[in-house]
């Protein structure tokens, strides 16, 4: 099982603040992903990366940005938080290759007031 960590676990913040959600994995996985999930809904892919200096937007449009400077680290940044950004953010990673299982971190639950 992959070791993948997310901080903070919970965040309450005011509108207009800049926030960075951290995600790190210790398995040396090349691929990393960010998903967004609202209660009772499916997970939606918002960003993914196939390796260092590689980032792509996912299927769900998001105002967030990501970076991949190191293999193990894939932070997500919101420049100016809004109440519509309130959600659960889930980071995942997988090996390079076809039909590889994605392993998820514990998630960050964000509330923007």
């Amino acid at each position, binding site marked *: *099982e992959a070791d993948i960590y*997310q901080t903070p*676990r919970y965040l309450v913040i005011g509108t207009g603040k800049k926030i960075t959600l951290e995600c790190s994995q210790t398995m040396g996985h090349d*691929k990393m*992903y960010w998903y967004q999930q609202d*209660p*009772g*809904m*499916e*997970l*939606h*892919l918002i960003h*993914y990366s196939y390796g260092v200096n590689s980032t792509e937007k*996912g*299927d769900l449009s998001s105002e967030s940005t990501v970076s991949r400077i190191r293999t193990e680290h894939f932070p997500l940044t919101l420049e100016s938080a809004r109440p519509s950004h309130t959600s659960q953010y*889930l*980071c*995942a990673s*997988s090996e390079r290759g*076809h*039909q*590889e*299982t*994605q*392993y*998820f*971190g*514990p*998630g960050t*639950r964000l509330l923007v007031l």
Partner: protein
Amino acid sequence: DQQVKQNSPSLSVQEGRISILNCDYTNSMFDYFLWYKKYPAEGPTFLISISSIKDKNEDGRFTVFLNKSAKHLSLHIVPSQPGDSAVYFCAADGGATNKLIFGTGTLLAVQP
């Protein structure tokens, strides 16, 4: 248009009985399917997967069945335990991109 559908939002089962969770998909290009278990304030935990070249995969109490002609898969849990109570997500791998498409989940409640 949802490509992966879990039509039962919830399921209640008695402890010791079988739980059957269902999932339908529309895209015949999907070739790898996964089931995840999720508690409300946590990330999804991988349970079991199946490749499209198989029709069954078993791991302990969990078995996944794949019917490609019907574009349907199911997760069987037997015997069900109270600790199995959680939301179960079905996911399909879209192919070369390794992007997962998730269903909306089924809330399983196992009654003692």
